[in-house]
């Protein structure tokens, strides 16, 4: 099984993550894999997407020819505004984020460790910035980290200790990769609850640097690429 990012792995992660969203949830989806989650929200669930640049009930990317120059998401893509949506200024947007009005945020990462520390904003030699990620992990009620299990070079992204600058300390609640789903509690730390099709418990162990426990009722073949 090749490491790193493929369309399949990204969609597997996004589809599993979408099942975590409840009817009525207000969610913020970060760049990359999290943005794909919107494509997999189960029918009949009203999930409100907030983009931190000040758009609530943010819809899909606009079709060519229908773009509005001043209707964009936090990645600067022209988007639709769904019925009932609105715009807010940035102070209001981040008040919403810190004030507990965002049920879930889903973000990508470079590293995550067993304490729930997240490092996703600064690679050596590349100046990107944290954007709104520090506010989102500190403020959202549930913080999901969605990431390929390993980096492109095959090294674990789920590490014993984050070595890159932190986005948040102890903020990750749920960690979803194309191979496994871990949920973190104050008592036990990360607990492996689900293993994806094509992987065994030993595969997860050998590709995971962070400490975790295995749930008594861990589910094997719990999810995977669409067949």
């Amino acid at each position, binding site marked *: 099984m090749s490491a790193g990012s493929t369309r399949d792995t990204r969609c597997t992660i996004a589809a599993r993550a979408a099942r975590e969203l409840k009817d009525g949830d207000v969610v913020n989806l970060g760049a990359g894999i999290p943005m794909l989650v919107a494509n997999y929200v189960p029918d009949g669930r009203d999930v409100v997407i907030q983009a931190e640049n000040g758009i609530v009930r943010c819809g899909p990317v606009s079709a060519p020819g229908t773009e509005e*120059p001043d209707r*964009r998401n936090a990645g600067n893509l022209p988007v639709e505004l769904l019925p009932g949506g609105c715009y807010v200024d940035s102070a209001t947007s981040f008040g919403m984020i810190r004030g507990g009005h965002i049920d879930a945020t889903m973000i990508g990462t470079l590293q995550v460790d067993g304490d729930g520390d997240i490092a996703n904003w600064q690679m050596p030699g590349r100046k990107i910035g944290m954007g709104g990620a520090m506010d989102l992990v500190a403020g959202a009620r549930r913080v999901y980290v969605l990431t390929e299990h390993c980096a492109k070079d095959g090294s674990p992204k789920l590490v014993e200790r984050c070595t890159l600058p932190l986005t948040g300390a102890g903020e990750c609640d749920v960690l979803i990769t194309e191979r496994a789903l871990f949920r973190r509690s104050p008592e036990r730390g990360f607990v492996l609850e689900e293993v994806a099709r094509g992987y065994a418990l030993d595969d997860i162990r050998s590709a995971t640097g962070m400490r975790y426990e295995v749930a008594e009722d861990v589910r094997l073949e719990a999810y995977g690429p669409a067949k």
Partner: protein
Amino acid sequence: MPANKMIPLDEAVARVESGMTLAMGGFLGQGSPLTLIRSLRDGDVEDLTIYANDAGFGDAGIVELIRAGKVRTLYCCHAGYTPAVNEAVERGLVELVWTPQGNLIEMLRCGGAGLGGFLTPTGVGTSVAEGKEHVTVDGKVYFWERAVRVDVALVQAHAGDTLGNLCHRGTARNYNPIVASCADYVIAEVEHVCCPGELDPEKIQTCGVFVDAVVRTTGDNASRHAA
């Protein structure tokens, strides 16, 4: 007879002096005051400190001031869409001070609202909180972040009247109304200028009380950047 704040572009921009601290509206080009930025780019001032969400998008925005060697320090949360900024940092042309998006906007909001600072949970346990005073309230840890008041603010609006009342469009609202509140001198560039009474008062998002000068958006500087 109410004051007419409409003045020529060069007269407005002449209020900016070398060594000053500025704040600018705009989010990856959404709502960026490009007429004002380009006027500064082509002028003589230098050694500026700027507070803004980002450095722009592609080759447009604050990145133009950085490439022209006019910016000493940029407080921002993102520079991932302006590769030229990375080069400028490596060459020592500009210093970036990473500031989480929600903290950044709140620093400006507090500065404009007469507050000295605020307690934020965003960034606790990360580099942005290092050396800052921490306070525990009801069991939750925060740190003190300072308010920011600047010499000059540059903002953008889709429509505005000669009293400085402004209507922002779509997500271009995000930084502009807050940035308009935090400066000793505020210049608004407006795409469509009208007379007092012509704007629907229910739709004015930035009150003219905050604005000192109004200039017209000129040339190809309107908010309609391609993605």
